[in-house]
């Protein structure tokens, strides 16, 4: 089991390394550099000086090596090209918590709400909760977040001044952005949960549970939900990635000082260090959520646990089925 976990963690680092290195190379081979993006008609000497200071004159591979060396020895992601003297990780430490808060709230509320709607829809198939779930799911898939954000802003901040329009302060600033972010996960998880629950409910072991005389509530709680968790958990990692992307728009529309706004700025000003650093963070979040999903499997499904214990890797077996 420990070996399995270690293997997964090592794999996570490998993916992280490849993705970050690739983006590093990609962004450094973009034509144009931070200086020409901001200042025009720069003397050649100043330019070379500037390059030398940030090591941009070195071959790409050397730059990449230096980047990793700096990260591994000092835990630093390098100096910002736009704000000299400030390190990229400073920005991350400052702005990431806001983005993550928004993302996590959106995800938690969205997923749990969606799951509840989905379960209800599946258990009352072709009845009101089912239609309601389908309606919400359709709404969620059809309305882009920015449209919802605009509508919400219009009704709750302009027409009725119930909430502050934009900015960042207490919990009250939180409500509308999170509301806009939950819509898409609610829709996705409602649809998905419904079909998964319907799948599980038709399994033979649910009939076994019923034949024991267990009441419906207990069967749903103990037998149905437990077995729907597996497929749902699988979807979590892509959702995390999706929400990080989604937060960009919401952040810019509600003028929230999060990483998203910064990311776009950094790219437009060719702040290589910042782009690489933020990409590092996003990729790490995604890969880490994949790892968490893998570990959750271990907790939820005893079959995976057993395999991990025996330290086997999933290899498609081609032994014919004999019956």
């Amino acid at each position, binding site marked *: 089991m420990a070996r399995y976990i270690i293997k997964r963690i090592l794999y996570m680092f490998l993916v992280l390394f490849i993705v970050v290195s690739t983006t590093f190379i990609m962004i450094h081979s973009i034509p144009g550099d931070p200086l020409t993006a901001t200042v025009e008609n720069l003397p050649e000497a100043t330019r070379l000086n500037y390059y030398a200071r940030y090591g941009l004159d070195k071959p790409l591979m050397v730059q990449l090596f230096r980047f990793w060396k700096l990260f591994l020895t000092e835990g630093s992601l390098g100096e910002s090209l736009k704000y000299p003297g400030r390190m990229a990780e400073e920005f991350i430490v400052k702005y990431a918590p806001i983005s993550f808060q928004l993302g996590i709230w959106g995800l938690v509320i969205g997923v749990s709400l969606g799951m509840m709607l989905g379960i209800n829809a599946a258990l009352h198939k072709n009845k009101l909760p089912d239609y309601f779930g389908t309606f919400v799911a359709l709404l969620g898939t059809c309305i882009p977040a*920015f449209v919802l954000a605009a509508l919400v802003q219009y009704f709750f901040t302009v027409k009725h001044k119930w909430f502050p329009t934009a900015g960042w302060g207490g919990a009250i600033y939180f409500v509308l952005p999170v509301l806009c972010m939950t819509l898409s996960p609610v829709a996705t998880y409602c649809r998905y949960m419904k079909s998964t629950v319907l799948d599980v409910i038709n399994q033979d072991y649910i009939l076994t549970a019923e034949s024991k005389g267990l009441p419906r509530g207990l069967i749903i709680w103990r037998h149905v939900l437990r077995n729907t968790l597996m497929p749902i958990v699988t979807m979590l990692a892509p959702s995390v990635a999706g929400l990080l992307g989604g937060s960009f728009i919401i952040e810019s529309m509600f003028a929230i000082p999060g990483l998203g706004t910064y990311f776009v700025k950094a790219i437009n000003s060719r702040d290589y260090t910042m782009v690489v650093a933020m990409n590092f963070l996003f990729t790490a979040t995604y890969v880490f959520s*994949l790892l968490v999903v893998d570990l959750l499997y271990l907790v939820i499904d005893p079959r995976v646990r057993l395999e991990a214990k025996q330290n086997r890797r999933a290899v498609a077996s081609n032994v014919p089925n004999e019956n």
Partner: protein
Amino acid sequence: MSPMKTDWINDTEGLTPEMFVTVGVDESKDRVLRPHISYWQDAFRRFKKNKLAVFGAILLVILMLLVIFGPIMAKHSFEETNIAESYHPMDKDYWFGADKLGRDYFARVWQGGRVSIIIGVSGAFICAFVGCIYGGIASYFGGRIDSFMMRIVEILSSIPYLLVVILLSLWLDAKGIKTLLLAMCLTGWTGIARLVRSQMITLRQSDYVLAAKLLGVKPLKIVTSHLIPNTIGLIIVNITFRVPSLIFSEAFLSFLGLGIQSPETSWGALCSAAQTVFTFKPHLMFFPALCIALTMLAFTLMGDGLRDALDPRQRK
């Protein structure tokens, strides 16, 4: 035992001896009674039964017609600026009003629709095409090649696609349909590649493919006569669901200012432009947003219907 009529065997009322002549089994009866339908006919029948899906299809046709003929029907070109008509209200001349530069909004909405739908549809087909070939190759060779190719897919799909778009638009130093398409397809094909691969692997292990192999059918013939026809339904469904998601992404990127640039436009770009004046001119946001929503709805409903119609698990 429950009481039974014992005299039933002697009760001859209404019975004639002809009724008791052994006729045996009528051999001709052992025929199929069900109406004769092919797979696609059956799928189509199933699709027609799904009212929501049919509604989606009709909605899509209407939207398509408007997108094709809308810019022609409008009284002004979508590019024609006329500062004097800035924010012209909705009337007979300007059906949806005009934007800040006095451009006819009706023409712009449908012109934007062209771009959005072209991106969605062609992107979905490109993704499907690349994904099918990649997944097909991986599953055909199997073994090490397969697991190596799938590792690449795994890593590619861990790159946030927003980053890819941004990088590409900087790299190509161009924003527009081609950049957007390239960026969205660069990572978008991985999902369908996985799907095709797993479906092909399942099919290759199926008994009927084994039977074909034993009959001496050449591998390429097996691919064309068994594997592709049995995957095509899955791919169609996937394309139907991918179109709206690409339209969504395009809108999202254009909204961030990374997509289509003026005077070309798309629904996302229109929304983005309308956002700043939303409080005063809500209709500028309303039309493109409604179009996006309706297109999404049409494709989603149709996709649901197609999936139910084509999914072999649902067949009875």
